[in-house]
């Protein structure tokens, strides 16, 4: 599909330029990033290293006791490959301390807690290092709502939020990300053996083909069916987008005045930059 094919030279130039420009214009020269060992954060690390110089990129790997040990190995591999600063801050103690009060909590609550714990560490390091937190959610995840609100979805700037997982793979190959990271099964790594595609019930390649037609090209349901997509799959994905829309918006504010923030008080975030 032509639309999911990315001109990686152009995409790289655009995303590297984005990080360079949007970080420096706020008077900052550094970024901090959570490195999971997965491909999305690896790609953002490579983009940031190219944009700002590896010495200005601080990656933190934040394993939990149930994280796959391979994740930490891959995170270190990525950090070494692009020459960025790297540290490890385990989150087990903090998360455990909390769930001692809620021993029956299910996987979803635990997973969200871990994602938010990592977020607080990244934003603390933002203050410590005078560095902006870069986001690592791709367009597929953001549209499906497959992320934790105020957890891994939280960032100051997100270079890859408008590219699908399929395009993340293409750009990662072009930028020389270690093959072990590109080729492994995507996983949130919140519990042992978890994989994204198993949890979602479809592959990223399948859903990207649908999302591209549905979101970017605005094909109707009838047109999507005519293109060979199963109506149930279409309905499921449409519902996922709709039901997760709250995660992609600021909290709703009750309107009282004539100028309500983001409703009729409208300024770009780069106001004055």
């Amino acid at each position: 599909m032509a639309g999911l094919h990315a001109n990686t030279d152009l995409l790289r130039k655009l995303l590297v330029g984005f990080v360079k420009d949007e970080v420096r214009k706020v008077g900052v020269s550094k970024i901090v990033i959570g490195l999971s060992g997965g491909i999305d954060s690896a790609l953002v690390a490579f983009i940031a290293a190219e944009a700002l110089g590896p010495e200005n990129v601080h990656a933190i790997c934040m394993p939990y006791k149930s994280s796959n040990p391979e994740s930490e190995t891959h995170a270190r591999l990525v950090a070494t490959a692009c020459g960025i600063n790297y540290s490890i801050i385990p989150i087990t103690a903090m998360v455990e301390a909390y769930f001692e009060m809620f021993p029956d909590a299910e996987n979803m609550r635990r997973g969200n807690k871990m994602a938010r714990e990592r977020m607080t560490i990244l934003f603390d390091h933002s203050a410590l290092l005078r560095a902006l937190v870069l986001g690592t959610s791709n367009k597929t995840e953001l549209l499906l709502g497959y992320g934790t609100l105020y957890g891994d979805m939280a960032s100051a700037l997100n270079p890859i939020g408008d590219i699908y997982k399929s395009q993340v793979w293409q750009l990662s190959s072009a930028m020389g990300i270690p093959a072990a990271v590109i080729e492994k099964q995507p996983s949130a790594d919140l519990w042992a053996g978890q994989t994204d595609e198993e949890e979602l019930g479809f592959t990223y390649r399948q859903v990207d083909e649908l999302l591209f037609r549905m979101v970017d090209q605005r094909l109707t349901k009838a047109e999507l069916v005519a293109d060979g997509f199963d109506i149930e799959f279409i309905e499921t994905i449409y519902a996922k987008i709709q039901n997760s829309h709250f995660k992609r918006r600021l909290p709703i504010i009750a309107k009282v005045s004539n100028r309500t923030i983001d409703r009729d008080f409208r300024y770009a975030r780069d106001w004055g930059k």
Partner: protein
Amino acid sequence: MDFTVVLAQIKPKLGCVADNLTTIEGQIAKAQVAGSDLIVFPELAMSGYFLKDLVPEVAVRIDSPEIQRLIELSRGISIAIGFVEEANDYHFFNSALYLEDGAIRHLHRKVYLPTYGLFDEQRYLARGTSFRAFDTKFGRFGMLICEDMWHLSASYILAMDGATTLICLSSSPARGIDGDSLGSASAWQKLTSTTALFLNCRVLYSNRVGFEDGINFWGGSEYIAPSGESVVRGALMEEDFVTACVDEGSLRRERIFSPMMRDENLFVTLQELQRISRQRGQ
């Protein structure tokens, strides 16, 4: 006559008129030192593009000190520049001025304000109501602001009004990464080239660079000869100072070789447009 033009591919700061004027004056000085005759800045060079509620804050009047200063500078070099104009009736326009020899030669107010996709201009700005060619030291010109050029009638009117050089001031956002080149860049390159070819006109296209809220402006400022051929093209996504030598001979030769504009039948066009207008009841 032959002249040298600079397409100032700058990166304005959003909402910072004073800072942008410093940049603009620096570019003007540089162009003058280089011996250029004309400098063309992008759309909204004085203010940045995604202004939203900043529009009234960054707007300047034609009689403001900022504009008077630029008029003064035009004694040394002709200047085309985009800014937010505050009119006497407190309407705000996305405007462009052509300044020469210490005087305003032309003011164009953007007619087609895009309000779709990522654009929201008509919410904040008033629409211009005319396209007029005007005389300069370098021949008869027409000015367009970005979206104006996507309306065939705009360039056509200017060409029929005698313009042989079209200046387009632009803030075009980058999008489309699936092809051999950037989607919005190749669309614009087709447009400017085809417009030049159809109307036997030169096109001077000045597009900005930089990012605003994650949106990139791709640059690629360009001088297109009346044959539709791109003579000089600026860097993609980077600041540039694009210098082009514009020669009268190529315009003359093209107009002899392809006299479509000479043969253009204004009477037929008007007659048919009037019929369409009557039939639509407007």
